[in-house]
């Protein structure tokens, strides 16, 4: 009889990217130290790390723009020793991609389709389909110079898909977009992964978007891989350590924040109440006496806090335990690694 893990492995999509021990140094500075991970077809993998963590180096290596000092990777069964063949299997949207302003979106996609070996007629047909896929069918004959930033990101994603790649690398695709543009683009990324069964590696500084759309995550810090796995696994693995600190966050209406703060500061189990930096209406509560980690007492304190606010008729907009979000895990891991 098959074990449950074997059954689970068989039901999973195949691995289309496997990286083993990738290392890269720039002179004496080590930019990447033993990066190993894998990506399955149709999955979205979030690539996280603070500035200088080695994300761009990793992407450059995996997209064959740079050679690793050591290590190996395989994409769709092709080893890293065949960069030209790999380039035929991947699609890339680099960060700060430039566009020829005098070309139309349609010409741009046709040109790249031809460079990937399509005939002119095939490339044109495919360009039309891609324009539809990324929602630019009405602007295909417009010069790229007239596109908005969001439209350029979309045409960049279409270009990355021009060869029907098995893996797509998207480096900060939502950078500079407004919230609606970000949302639309992430939906597009999810659509690409699900409909085309394409593996997507998504580099982003926006942890919330990684958490929302990614199946798996790799966290890098100063060249080292500090976490990898599914988002739930990585959060779950680190969460306990963070929760031991017993910090809560509560969101109230912004005009009620002073009143809420006064009520909470008067409660016996709370050491410190402070607003959360950029998050409007959020208060961060540091609890006393629960550092022993007994879940029952934590839950009771949570209930008391909420009851106090309700009694004071302060509307509660949000409530969360610090450590339960990818954002907390990221900060915790990168902080630990720096220490």
């Amino acid at each position, binding site marked *: 009889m098959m074990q449950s893990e074997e059954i689970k492995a068989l039901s999973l999509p195949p691995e289309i990217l496997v990286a083993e021990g990738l290392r890269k140094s720039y002179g004496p500075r080590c930019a990447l130290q033993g990066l190993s991970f894998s990506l399955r077809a149709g999955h979205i993998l979030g690539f996280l790390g603070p500035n200088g963590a080695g994300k761009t180096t990793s992407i450059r290596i995996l997209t064959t*723009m740079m050679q690793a000092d050591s290590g190996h990777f395989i994409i769709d069964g092709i080893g890293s020793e065949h960069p030209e063949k790999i*380039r035929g299997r991947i699609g890339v949207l680099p960060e700060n991609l*430039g*566009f020829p302003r005098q070309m139309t979106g349609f010409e741009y996609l046709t040109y790249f389709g031809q460079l990937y070996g399509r005939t002119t*007629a095939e490339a044109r047909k495919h360009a*039309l389909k891609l*324009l539809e896929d990324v929602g630019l069918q*009405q*602007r295909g004959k417009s010069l790229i110079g*007239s596109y908005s930033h969001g439209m350029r990101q979309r045409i960049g994603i279409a270009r990355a898909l021009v060869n029907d790649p098995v893996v797509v690398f998207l480096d900060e695709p939502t950078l500079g977009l407004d919230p609606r543009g970000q949302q639309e683009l992430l939906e597009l990324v999810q659509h690409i992964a699900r409909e085309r069964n394409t593996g997507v590696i998504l580099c982003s500084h926006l942890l919330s978007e990684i958490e929302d759309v990614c199946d798996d995550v790799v966290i890098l810090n100063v060249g080292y891989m500090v976490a990898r796995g599914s988002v739930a696994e990585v959060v779950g693995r680190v969460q306990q350590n963070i929760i031991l600190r017993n910090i809560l966050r509560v969101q109230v209406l912004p005009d009620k924040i002073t009143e809420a703060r006064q009520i909470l500061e008067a409660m016996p189990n709370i050491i410190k109440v402070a607003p959360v930096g950029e998050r409007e209406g959020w208060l961060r509560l540091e609890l006393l006496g629960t550092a022993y980690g007994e879940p029952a007492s934590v839950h009771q304190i949570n209930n008391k806090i909420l009851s106090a606010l309700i009694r004071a008729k302060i509307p509660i907009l949000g409530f969360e335990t610090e450590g339960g979000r990818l954002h907390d895990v990221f900060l915790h891991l990168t902080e630990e690694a720096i220490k």
Partner: protein
Amino acid sequence: MNTMQTTKENIQDNPSDSALPAWWLVFTRELADLWVGGKGLSLILIYSVVLAVMVYVFSFNTELSLIPPKEAVYEMLKNAMAVSMFISLVIGADTLSGERERNTLESLLLTPASRRQIVVGKFLAAFSIWPVAYAIAIPFMNVLSQGDEVLLPAILWGLATGTVMVVAFTGLGMLVSFWSSSNRVSYFASMGIYVLLLVPAELPGTSSGAAGQFLQWINPMASVNHFLSKHLVNYEPLSLFWSWLVAPAVLAVLALGFLFLYAGPGLRLEPGKTSWLWTRKLGRAIGLGGMALLLIALFTSASSAMAGSQAQNQTSDLQISIDLDALVVKTGDKVEYNTVVTNNGAEASPPLIVAMNVINLDAKGDTVDPEDWAPKRTQYMETLGPGETVSLHWIINTILEGNYMVYMVLIPQPDNSDSTSQAVATSGIHLTVQPFTRLNPGGVLPYVIGAPLLVVVIIYFVNRSRNKNVDIGRSE
């Protein structure tokens, strides 16, 4: 009509075809970028204005309008080539560093297209400036030639030498661009190279002496100018000056070699980095090998360039040769040539006299008035040692139209008043002198105004045609 419906119709008009090679795709794309909305037409407009101003000055300036047509044609050709080389250098300098700066190189490198093919496509597109520029120069040369027969050889030799030089300069520009991270660095470095080669070629007096001649010969721009001037203006035979084409040819071969064999496969996002196949040692070895070959070629050819004479079969121990072929000139032209006197004997010669003779063939062999035709009709030499050679320079001022015969006589000075000496003569060179014509200012105006105007009209129609095929939409 929906914009994309139009596109769909266009697709249906084109039946299925085969995949095109990457170099061709890059070439056609770059060509469109350069000529449609790019800087190609703007640079050509500036170029045509420069040539037009030059022709205008040639025709309206009292002194310059007296320049013989062949010299005017040569000057026009020289300047057209110099400006074309400059433009090709500027365009070449933008090809790779410009793409790096605009962040468009990465998407090209991410395709499976061979990097060498990418470089070939870009090179061909950058080179496309030359045929257009040269086509614009031809009418200007035509108007300056005033029907002189120098026009055809000037067009042909200009095309040949200009093509070699533009290939070399485009390649140089691209190599600089390959090693540069930004366009600013690339442009400055390219300008430096251009000025370094142009200034010695234009400065007066730099070609005097053996060292000066060698420097002129080794400088591709100066040597091409020298070659064209000797052949087109002085009608000197090619056999004497072919070696002046070595430096441009070597430069073109080296530039292309480095570009396609070294820079092409090693093209990377970062400036100047090469692929693992092209290690530093290999690159250095190729560079040194190329330099060694260049030096060998330069030195072996230099000797023949300096000699500059053609020996003739003569029976005496004393020989005289002349480096002049039959030629057609206009009244007022200055014909310059050299004679080389050699003592092949085992003993030193007596003092020697070389005399110029110009006979009017239309007047049944009458000699022309020597004072008007040549500032120096005879030259005297002290004894010539065994195996020794002396080169003498001569000038003929063509005063009257007609058919003439030029020949030189070498006469050993007799020992005493009773003795005679054996004279040696060169073959006779036929000199045709045609009547002088002055450049007509009214005749050049259509060219001066027409050429730049034509380019402006072309720019207008190219932009209009382009705008018709695209939506000039606003961002959303």
